[in-house]
């Protein structure tokens, strides 16, 4: 009888497992933890330099995480919600719009903090319970290709459906991002009937190709700047990218005598489960200063200060010179989920 040969684990497997285990162990937690964690959905190009400056000025180590524009802010807010279930990580959520922070506030995920830096920010841009604060806004504008259309001929959001420009107007699919917020705001600004008429018309024309539905505002900007569309909805930061690159474009703030232009401010908020609340408050105090609004106004993203007194370059709109849409941002944020379901039914066919 042959002697027993107990099985031996193959050398290769053991080696590979050892390497993997070492890498996994070695990679975990080998550096100093941060003093502050910020989730920022403003573009990394603009958010990161500011945060690094905050680090230099305060000596705090900040871990900042950004989102990709394709995710339309869903990535970070979804992460926040998930992480809050088991192991909160984030201290401050700096969103480039407001609807997500309103939603998080309604879910009880945000802490109340009345930053002294925010006291001169208009009340319309602040949560009454100080759970989020708006600053440095974008405006919803119609970007116009000046070689195809005289901007003076585009005055209203309803022009998007004018048969003169059939097949040559564009907007982003209103199921995410500022377009989604915009449509939700229309319900409050126009009333149920008119708002429904607007979105239903848009959906009908998008189905036939009379209105071009792009993946996002940046894409609308590309279509217009390249002449594939005559004009369309976008945000002022996207418009500014095309303007600075020398494309023949202009921005129209429509419905100056009607419903006006929606402003979409950045909003910053302290998380209720923030592991470093004091550092979070310091950051909010820093980021909500007028100097930051001025800096963002001068940047490529051309964010519009919500404070009238903040200086801005000439190409950055002054809200006093055009009609702002009068809506309660909180109400927009509260109703956006229900509106999105309706928009989903209309646009996703």
């Amino acid at each position: 009888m042959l002697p027993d040969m107990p099985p031996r684990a193959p050398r290769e497997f053991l080696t590979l497992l050892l390497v993997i285990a070492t890498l996994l162990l070695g990679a975990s937690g080998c550096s100093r933890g941060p003093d502050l964690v910020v989730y920022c959905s403003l573009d990394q190009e603009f958010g990161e330099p500011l945060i690094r400056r905050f680090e230099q000025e305060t000596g705090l180590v900040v871990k900042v995480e950004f989102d990709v524009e394709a995710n339309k802010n869903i990535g970070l807010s979804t992460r926040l919600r998930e992480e809050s279930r088991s192991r909160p990580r984030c201290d401050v959520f700096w969103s480039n719009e407001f609807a997500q922070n309103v939603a998080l506030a309604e879910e009880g995920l945000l802490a109340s903090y009345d930053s002294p830096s925010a006291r001169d920010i208009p009340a319309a841009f602040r949560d009454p319970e100080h759970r989020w604060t708006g600053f440095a806004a974008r405006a919803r504008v119609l970007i116009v290709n000046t070689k195809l259309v005289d901007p003076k001929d585009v005055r209203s959001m309803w022009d998007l459906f004018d048969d003169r420009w059939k097949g040559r107007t564009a907007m982003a699919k209103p199921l995410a991002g500022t377009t989604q917020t915009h449509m939700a705001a229309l319900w409050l600004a126009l009333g149920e009937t008119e708002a429904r008429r607007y979105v239903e018309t848009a959906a009908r024309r998008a189905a036939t190709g009379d209105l071009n539905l792009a993946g996002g505002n940046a894409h609308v900007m590309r279509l217009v700047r390249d002449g594939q569309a005559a004009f369309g909805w976008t945000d002022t930061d996207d418009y500014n990218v095309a303007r600075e690159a020398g494309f023949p474009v202009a921005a129209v703030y429509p419905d100056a005598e009607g419903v006006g232009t929606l402003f979409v401010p950045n909003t910053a908020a302290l998380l209720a489960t923030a592991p470093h609340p004091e550092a979070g408050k310091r950051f909010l105090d820093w980021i909500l200063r007028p100097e930051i609004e001025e800096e963002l106004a001068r940047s490529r993203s051309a964010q519009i200060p919500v404070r009238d007194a903040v200086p801005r370059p000439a190409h950055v709109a002054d809200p006093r010179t055009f009609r702002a849409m009068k809506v309660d941002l909180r109400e927009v944020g509260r109703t956006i989920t229900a509106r999105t379901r309706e928009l989903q039914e209309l646009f996703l066919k």
Partner: protein
Amino acid sequence: MTAVVVSGARVEAGGRTILGPIDVSIEPRTWTTIVGRSGAGKTTFLRLIAGLARPTAGRVALFGEPVSDGARILVPPERRGVGLVFQGGGAGLWPHMSVARTLDFVLSCARVPSHERAARVAQLIEAVELGPCRDRRPGELSGGEAQRLSLARALANRPRLLLLDEPLGPLDAELRASMVERVRVLHREFGLTTIQVTHDPHEVEHVTDRTLRLDAGTIVSPAG
């Protein structure tokens, strides 16, 4: 002690009995030849003894030790002390291993210390006259060379039982004769119990101690 005892063994596949019921005893140090037409179950019989075919009934014992009982495998193939030369030239040879590496691998599986392995590999290679081919892979060997490598591999760990599945198939007449002689020498030298499956019993009648005929999965007679 009887080398191989098969009692009432049966092997089924696809709802069909392909071997059995079969009863046979084989004495140690003997050379037994199994003959029969294609599809008679000859290869299955060898695989049953090696433990590569699972029986559905009956018992198999090797050198007094039960190795299977019904469908239960009591001793796995790697512990039965069996060497098998597969049917078909270089069948079952490892395409990525050279001749020397193949034999070295088999010896390492038996935990032969590395300082001994080199010498034993050399011996095996010499025994089957594959010296010029030691660094070649199976794909670079002729049919006869591949068959000799199969034989060397089967014998490397000094099995007590050698199973040969039509080992002469791909060889020409001259090679057949030399192969039979080579195996005969090794059979005697190592005191093996050898069971060979063949179509042509005449080639081995001068070495075989006993011939059994299989037909439709059962032993019909000691072949005439």
